[in-house]
């Protein structure tokens, strides 16, 4: 996986950022009408999407039971007979990671081991997810504890209060501290909470600041804001990633999360990555989709591709 060492905060760059929402909306709308994949291409793309999913459960009622079920599904995301029919049975298709609360990391570690998926990364949300409205010290502490429990990726939220007041210096310092808490071996994914940021210009600025502070991924949302992973937001963030790459040479990953539920959506996001960043950004080391129900829809589509029939929900393992 690529690693982003970050850079000094460059406020000139940040302040120069400007995003034209209507123009972004137009590009986002037409991009999807300009690209589509059909038949075998669609099947292959959907399988690739599966490998990029951060299969997620982030609920108040999460217990060992549903985390375990999630982990087994993560190791066997598509029914084996379907994979076999597509000639991909021996490919070792799994999701990109599982994503849970820090309190459930331990359950995930054990479950993945049981399921034979110990290699699947475990992402833990941290830093007072989803609102981030907890003292900074406890946020750092949560990161360390999650890593101690076996998390290999940390999804943090930025302080939207600082972003909204334009205190990008402070935002930068906080993320940098989180990065330090993660160390070099644990991937830092920074959630911008884009739905709270008010403007796409703020989204772009937050993306830059998060990358300058060393985030390995930038992620749209917690799934709990009013507006989550929309195409215009995604387009804005991947453009920031592209500019950061051009200026620094560091590749930062992108994770849209929240509201991505259909197989068609997942192909659209892959197309966005391909068009705006290139094929390299269509792999799990630089692209993740944060989702829970998406996998079921992809599996249904693949069932249809293989059998020519639409599946009933009960035919696929939940």
């Amino acid at each position, binding site marked *: 996986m690529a690693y982003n060492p970050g850079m000094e905060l460059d406020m000139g760059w940040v302040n120069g950022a*400007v*995003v*034209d*929402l*209507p*123009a*972004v*909306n*137009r*590009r986002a709308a*037409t991009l999807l*009408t*300009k*690209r*589509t*994949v*059909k*038949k*075998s*291409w669609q*099947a*292959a*793309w959907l*399988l*690739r999407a599966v490998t990029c999913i951060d299969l997620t459960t982030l609920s108040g009622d999460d217990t060992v039971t549903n985390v375990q079920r999630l982990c087994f599904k993560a190791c066997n995301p598509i029914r084996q007979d379907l994979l076999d*029919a*597509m*000639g*991909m049975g021996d*490919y070792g298709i799994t999701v990109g990671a599982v994503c849970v609360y820090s309190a459930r990391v331990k359950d995930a570690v054990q479950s993945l081991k049981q399921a034979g998926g110990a290699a699947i990364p475990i992402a833990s949300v941290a830093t007072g997810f989803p609102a981030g409205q907890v003292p900074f010290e406890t946020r750092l502490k949560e990161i360390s504890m999650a890593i101690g429990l076996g998390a290999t990726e940390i999804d943090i939220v930025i302080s939207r209060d600082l972003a909204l007041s334009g205190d990008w210096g402070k935002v930068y310092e906080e993320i940098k501290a989180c990065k330090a808490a993660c160390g070099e071996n644990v991937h830092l994914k920074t959630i911008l909470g*884009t*739905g*709270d*940021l*008010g*403007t*796409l*210009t703020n989204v772009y600025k937050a993306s830059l600041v998060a990358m300058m502070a060393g985030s390995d991924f930038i992620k749209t949302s917690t799934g709990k*804001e*009013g*507006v989550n992973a*929309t195409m*215009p*937001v995604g387009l804005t963030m991947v*453009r920031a990633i592209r*500019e950061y790459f051009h200026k620094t040479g560091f590749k930062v990953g992108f994770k849209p999360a929240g509201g991505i539920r259909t197989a068609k959506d997942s192909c659209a996001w*892959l197309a966005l990555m*391909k*068009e705006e960043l290139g*094929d390299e950004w*269509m792999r799990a080391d630089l692209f993740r989709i944060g989702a829970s129900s998406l996998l079921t829809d992809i599996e249904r589509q693949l069932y249809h591709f*293989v059998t020519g029939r639409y599946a009933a929900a009960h035919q696929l393992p939940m």
Partner: protein
Amino acid sequence: MAGNLGSEIRRIFDNMEYGPAPESADVAKKWLSQHKDSLGHFINGEWVKPENRKTYTTCSPATGEALADTIQGEEEDVNLAVSCAKTAFQSWSQLPAHTRARHLYAVARNVQKHHRLIAVIEALDNGKSIRETRDCDIPLVARHFYHYAGWAQFSDTEMREWKPVGVVGAIVPWNFPLMLLTWKVCPALAMGNTVVLKPATFTRLSALLFAEICHEAGLPPGVFNVVTGNGSFGSKLALHPDVDKVAFTGSTPVGQTLRRLTAGTGKKLSLELGGKSPVIVMDTADIDSAVEGIVDAIYFNQGQVCSAGSRLLVQENIFDDVIQRVKERLKHFRIGHSLDKAIDMGAIVSQAQYNTIKEYVDDARATGADVFQPDIPLPAKGLFYPPTLITNVQTVSRVVREEIFGPVLVALPFRTAKEAGNLGNNTNYGLAASVWSENLPTALELAITLKAGTVWVNCHNLFDAAAGFGGYRESGFGRDGGKEGLYEYVMPKWERTIRQNVDIDIKTFGASFGSGTSPTPGQGGPSKSQLCPNGKQQPLVDHTYKVYYGGAQKRPDGCYSRPIYAAHDKQTIVAYVGDSNRKDVRNAVEAAHKAAPGWGKRAAHNRAQIVYYMAENLELRRQEIAERISLLTGKTLENSFKEVDLSIQRLFYWGAYADKYGGNVQETTLYGCTVCIREPVGVVGIACPDEFPLLGFVSLFAPAIVRANCVVIIPSDKYPIPALDFYQVFDTSDLPAGVVNVLSGNKDHISKYLTEHQNVDAMWYFGSAEGSKFVEFTSAENVKRTWVNYGKERDWMDQDQGQGEEFLYHATQCKNIWMPMGTTFSN
């Protein structure tokens, strides 16, 4: 599921390529085979296939595959179609407005019903992508019919001063075959005209299909007819005596030809011609969005768009960055068959067009320009040309000056917004422009500065039925779309149709100067009245009328004068007036241009005040001027007073309009603001009628100047003196120098040089049928707007004829500025 599939999926999984995504051609093939792949004209509600016509086989540019045979029409086919349209006009124009609205509405519904079929036909026949026909062309066709169904409904209220002209001959190009014909047909039908349409040779299918759909939708026979044929067939249509109006979209040279062909005949004409539209990117722009905008601007429809943003102007501090980003963007382009749903560009329409594009690019390369074309796959067969970006070119380069009509972008840097505006306007064309900046004052000022009929702010190539589209300068005149588009298809209710053929020699018309006008001793002079102050007799101070430009009276360049006689006695010389020649025209036009920017920037209120002030000062001289009119024209003093009083009234009328006709907000589909600004036409040459020497003069210059034009005006050559007396009214009314310039002399001689002047933007001519023809013919050269009377007098005392919307129409040109809005994307 065999092993083959397995290896295929594995391969795609690994390389994440795109695959084919074809739209089926079946629906189109079925329609064509219903017609045995052979189509005739569609006239009077039925297919017409005369015997012994040559045929033209239309092909798909993507593959070369033949699609169908169409026929090459001959003169008798035009005659048939026009006579059917003329017959249909009798009843169609008399239908209640609401009934016509129902018909247009039905067409819109039927277009939507056949959306897929039309989209596929259009993509196949033209080579453009199915995505564009499906998402752009055809929805706009339906939208146009809905919008103009509304104008049909309002035709006898909103347009009650106007009536239809009759039969419209529409000639449209191949780049948006159906969409552009709709732009003509909708306003024409809404106002009660009937139409004979000639589609472009390469793309006849959608027009024929559409005619069948209209018929199916219940449009009465003869209201909309389609005839096919070559270019000279189009000229036959334009020249047919029963065609009352020619509506053309296409190249500037063909537009000029049509202007010359129809000159002097009394036919109405609107031209939507070529362009070399600038895309201006300021350093305050969202650059990534600007890059997408550039893609929309120049690579939409393979660049075969009259409003294509083919000149990229980038502020120098971001030039390299923008160029780099455009190049990277182009590497993601996909080019392929028009029915592939996942392509950015399809095929070029024809081999000839392909060759033209290639020749331009090769020429640029040969002359040292940097030509970038991305290394992307092109289909082996078919007319595919890669997206091209040319840098290291200058304003003198051929590719910078000429319209290429292909996916070829040239890029130049600029330093300041002012320079951007100057570069943007450094072109013969003026169809469209886009400005990219997040800074509102910069963007708006540039939008106003650019001489173009459409300016998009932070977007490019957006279209909607509610906003007019059309050009400044050599991009043509007239508007397609919006309420402003209606005026191209109507005439004032009081006016009668004029159809005439006038023979003149363009070379010699108005050319002679000075013969017999120069005063010679013994010829006589103005009567020598005497004054007797303090009992001593002395002569009146000599009063010689000079010409008037730049705010001062100037001796005419040729130092010639002409005698003006009294009405009662053709021997009595009332005065000598200056006899202007082409150098006076040159000087006056220069003065007008000098005044124009400042006059345009004055507050409308201020322009109004000046015109009211003229009324005030004219009234002070009421008696004197009335007497002079009477002396010159032989009218009764009472009638002369009426003329003066009505002139004063008219100054009030136009003063009132100074701040009440600036434009309106267009209700387009844009989320944001589309504003129609009625800008001045520029410098207007005006030749006044002989009837009503004062009122005609006032009725013409006043509407022009209140709408911020500057004028060079030729007073009646028989009775110029009331207009020349007006110098002092101008001077005492705070009129800035150069706004009104008056050149007395021979009307046709001065008109000749005004019309031939490339820097005169419009010519209004009220004189002979011959002069009218000359003005229209000669204006083709720089596609001037013209307004001529074809030798027919109008009653300037009459309110309908001497003032009103017709004058405002001629005094303004519509610029539509598109301003998308929004920063709020979430809560």
